[in-house]
Every structure is written in structure tokens, then in C-alpha cells.
């Protein structure tokens, strides 16, 4: 552990970029990193390789298994649409939701938590009790309600999922802010006449980015999962657009007659989630190691 930690610290403080140290941690991290890159590249550019469009029905091949000769590499669904294109386009939506929803939750959570933590006292009490109250609300119910009320808008889905997941982020950020606001450089900034808003923005928030980034990296797969769940319930994206969750949902219905309809999107989803989780966890370990060594030095 300590030997690994040392090489990590050296990577973080020497002239070389920090990410090199991060990927040097273990082979698993490197494999997951490459795998995720490959999936991202495939999802982005893969649909261009296939002659079929997302909603194009191939009447000759309805619910056919994977075959090289027909050009339907992943087979077709029971409407005759190419599953390769649909899986990859669905991946675009899933990844987009994961990233955008995380961004929304970061934006709300970081500002809310930092303001509550820095203001302290009664403001903090009121703001955090509100978070407690929201925690007690059944979250899925809320998302479903929002989706039903405002229709199935992709943008709204980002906001809805993100807006509900910011609670954890707000608590983490508030805790970090509480410990940071008594650091001497904050007093030093105050002693130089920097107003509170600028102190939070320029001195507090950048100093907790290591913790926030780790949390965000673990939130991305969580958001993807939430979107898949919503799509599985039929509340996700609207046809002909699709997502991994929706494809899994459709595939599950035809599991016995057309197993490829479940297998391909489900494997993509599972591998992506696994890689994201491994990378997020590695980021946390890397961060802890570097942080503790820096503190001890």
C-alpha cells in the first residue's frame, strides 16, 4: 500500500501530468479506462459505419439474429430496426444523460452546499433542514411525477434526475466548506478585503474539487442507472429515440424468442457501468493516497 502510495504521490507532485500516476495504479484501471474510451468512440462514431438509420425498418429482416451478411451485426428488433445502430444511439443518450444530469447535480449541489457551509449559523440550519426534508421524499415518485407533468422531454430528464440527486452533493460540499472556511488562507483572503462571494468561488470551491470530482465520477453511473430504470418503466426517452434502459426493457419482453435484443444493450450497459465504477473508485483511492501523503509531508 505504502509503496503504491509513494509512486502515486510522486506522480502527483512531479512535473509529469497527474493522470499518468492515476493510470499507473493498476492494470484494472488501465483496462477499464481503455474499455470506456472504446465504448465512447464506438457509441459516437459507430452508427456511421452501418448503412441503417435509427428508425429504418428492414422488412426483409424482422426479429432476425446477428448476421454478417445481412449487415445487421447485432440483429434486428421485432420491428425490423437495426439493433447495432439502436444500441449505439441509445448509448449516446445514456452517456449524455449520465454526464448532463451529473453536471446539473454538481451545479446545484456545490452552490447550495458551499453557501450553506460558508454562511453558517441559522442560514446553514434552515438550508440543511430543507435538504433533510427533501431526502425524506420518495425520489422516484418525484421523477415520475415530473415526467408525467412536463412530458418526455430529454432536457427535462437531465434536469429532473440531476435536480433530485444534488442532495448528497450538497451535504458533502457543506461538510468540506465547514472544514475549509477555518483554514488560514481564507482568513488571509478576508484580511485582504475579498468579499464572501469571491472567497467561496475562488478559494473554497477549488479546494474541494478533489472530493467533488470523485463523487461526480461515481454519480455518472448512478445517473445512467436511474435513466435506464425510468426508460424501463416507459418514462424515459421517446420513440424513435432510444436509450440502453429502453432497449433492455424491450429486449426483456422478447428474451425467449430474440435473446440478442436483450444481450447487446444489456452488455453495453453493464460494461459501461462497471468501468465507470472502477474508475470512480480508483479516483477515490488515488485521491485519498495523494491527500494523506501531502498532509503528512
Amino acid at each position, binding site marked *: 500500500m505504502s509503496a503504491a502510495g509513494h509512486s502515486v504521490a510522486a506522480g502527483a507532485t512531479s512535473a509529469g501530468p497527474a493522470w499518468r500516476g492515476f493510470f499507473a495504479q493498476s492494470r484494472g484501471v488501465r483496462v477499464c479506462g481503455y474499455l470506456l474510451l472504446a465504448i465512447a468512440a464506438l457509441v459516437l462514431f459507430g452508427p456511421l459505419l452501418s448503412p441503417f438509420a435509427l428508425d429504418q425498418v428492414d422488412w426483409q429482416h424482422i426479429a432476425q439474429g446477428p448476421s454478417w451478411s445481412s449487415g445487421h451485426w447485432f440483429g434486428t428488433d421485432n420491428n425490423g430496426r437495426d439493433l447495432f445502430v439502436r444500441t449505439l444511439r441509445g448509448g449516446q443518450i445514456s452517456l449524455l444523460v449520465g454526464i448532463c444530469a451529473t453536471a446539473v447535480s454538481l451545479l446545484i449541489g456545490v452552490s447550495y452546499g458551499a453557501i450553506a457551509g460558508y454562511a*453558517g449559523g441559522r442560514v446553514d440550519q434552515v438550508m440543511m433542514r430543507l435538504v433533510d426534508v427533501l431526502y425524506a421524499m420518495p425520489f422516484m415518485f418525484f421523477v415520475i411525477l415530473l415526467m408525467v407533468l412536463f412530458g418526455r422531454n430529454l432536457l427535462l430528464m437531465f434536469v429532473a434526475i440531476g435536480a433530485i440527486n444534488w442532495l448528497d452533493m450538497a451535504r458533502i460540499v457543506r461538510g468540506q466548506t465547514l472544514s475549509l472556511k477555518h483554514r*488560514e488562507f481564507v482568513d*488571509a*483572503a478576508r*484580511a*485582504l*478585503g475579498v468579499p464572501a462571494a*469571491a472567497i467561496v468561488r475562488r478559494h473554497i470551491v*477549488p479546494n474541494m474539487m478533489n472530493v467533488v470530482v470523485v463523487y461526480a465520477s461515481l454519480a455518472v453511473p448512478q445517473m445512467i442507472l436511474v435513466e435506464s430504470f425510468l426508460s424501463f418503466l416507459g418514462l424515459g426517452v421517446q420513440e424513435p429515440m432510444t436509450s440502453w434502459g429502453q432497449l433492455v426493457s424491450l429486449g426483456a419482453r422478447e428474451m425467449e424468442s430474440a435473446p440478442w435484443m436483450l444481450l447487446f444493450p444489456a452488455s453495453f450497459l453493464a460494461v459501461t457501468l462497471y468501468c465507470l465504477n472502477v474508475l470512480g473508485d480508483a479516483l477515490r483511492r488515488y485521491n485519498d493516497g495523494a491527500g494523506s501523503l501531502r498532509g503528512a509531508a
Partner: protein
Amino acid sequence: MSAELLEVDDLGVCLATAAGDLHAVDSLGFSLREGELLGIVGESGSGKTQTALALMGLTPAGSRVSGSARLDGQELIGQPEAALNDLRGDRIAMVFQDPQAALNPYLRIGVQLTEVLEQHRDLDTAAAVGRAVEMLRAVGLDDSERCMRSFPHQLSGGMRQRVTIAMALLCRPRLLIADEPTTALDVTVQAQILGLLRVLKGTHYGAGLLITHDLGVVAEVCDRVLVMYGGRPMEVADVDALFHRGHHPYTRALLRSLPRLDRPESGLVPIPGQPGRPTGAGCPFNTRCVERLEQCAAVVPPKLDIAPGHLSFCHRSAPA
């Protein structure tokens, strides 16, 4: 007496602690003339730092500050945050003890320096950078362009303290407060930093308060000294007068407890006991004082003029 740069009257800082209110600073008064460097000396817990924080409006939440402190006639105590933000960094600035902790580890030096100028002067980026570079040169960082691009951890301790001094002096403040600026530094670097504070006085700041527990530092750079104990003033005098004609028993006890090169055989005489919690009654030093009188525990000693500019707060100093 009219041209005082800083006048402090009856300053009190009361901290709310778990064991009740603690009077960290009590009825403290002193004044500072243009071009003067006043040393505030005392043991840990004597209220030196709380005095500085009270002047800056940075006392911890839940503390109460009373009395008055006027910088060029303008009241500092009890001002709203916005008014303080206009003053701080511009007309009153502070250098902290640990330069490592006082610099934001995630921001480049240049960003931290120009932030101050953006706050107080309407400078565009180029002008702010120019001013910051110039200031870094003034504090003896010749490779200032490289310094501007560095992160705090890439500089040595002495360089970091030079940077925080540069940061405090960017707007040429009237009053500079240095809270143990050399404690975290090596002895050789210490001397350089103290020399720097001396050299920059007058050109880069009006007058200074140097808070320290090191009498050697005081003798080296200060013009006058305020000795504090238990949140109260003990003695105020010019440096020479204090070291040669120190009047207060506490001052003399402090001086006796220092090693002396010219009399190595005499040994050190420690002050017995530990600083206690200030009670508010009598002289705070009375429990440890070897020259204690009967009234010391009950009556707060009055302010007594020993000589022009030399004040002592001791019943012994009273004319019999």
C-alpha cells in the same frame, strides 16, 4: 499627539467558550505614530493575536469586541462587513504566521496577488500583473515572473512569506499587522524577513504592528514595545527603555528568562507557574509575580507614566 495613525482605546475581546465568556483582551489602549513599528510581546494566550484580529474585524464567530480603534480617525470596530472589505487589504493589511497555510494551495501566486488589486484598484489585468511583479521585486523575489506562475508549494518557506508580505503591501496600506511572521521560518530567513519589514516601512506602508513572543525580534526591528499578559497591557515603552529600564515585574521576569551571550554563567531564571485564565479582577500576573503586593489580586493597576512615552501598569510603579 494629534498625528496618530492608529489609536486604540479600551479595546476588549470577549470569546464565548464552553466554560463561559473569556476576556481574551481587556481594556487595552495604545497608539501608533506614522512610521512607527510597535512590537506586541507576550506569552501564548496573552491576547496578542486576538488584538490583531479585532483590528482586522476577523475575530471568531460568537466573540464580542468592544472599545474603539481609529485608523486615521476612522473607526474600525463594529463596522459592517462591506465597509471592512473596503478597508482590509487597502488601508489595513495583515501578514500571517504560517505562509504555507495563508496561501491558497490551488491558485497560482499571480492569481492571488492580482485578486487583491482587482478588489481595491480598478486596474486592468496587464496593469495589475505589472504592479504585482513590481511588488514581488520589492520584497526581494527577483525572478518575479516565474514566481507569478508558481503554485505556493513550488516556493520555499522564505519565498512564500515574501509573497504574503508582497500581497499585504500591494495597495500600500497605512497599517500593516504582522502576526508572528517569522515563527514558521528558519533563523537566517527570519532575519531577512525582519530586515524586509524594516526596509519597506515608509515606502510601502505607513506604520506596523509586529506581534511576536520573541524579544530578540522586537529588539532587532521595533521602535516601541507593548508587553501584554492575560489580555491586559503591562508596559509600553521605547525599545531601549524597555530593555534597559524595564519597569514592570513581568517585563523584568521575561528578560531574566532569556539566555544572554555576555553573561553565560548567570543561567536562566524561568517565570514560575503557567498563565492562568484571566479572571478580570486585579492584575492578571499577580499569581506568578515575585513582587506581589496585597492589592494586586483585587485592584486592577492604574496606568502610570514612568517617563515620557513609558507607561507601566503595576501597583509597584505608583509613587509611594
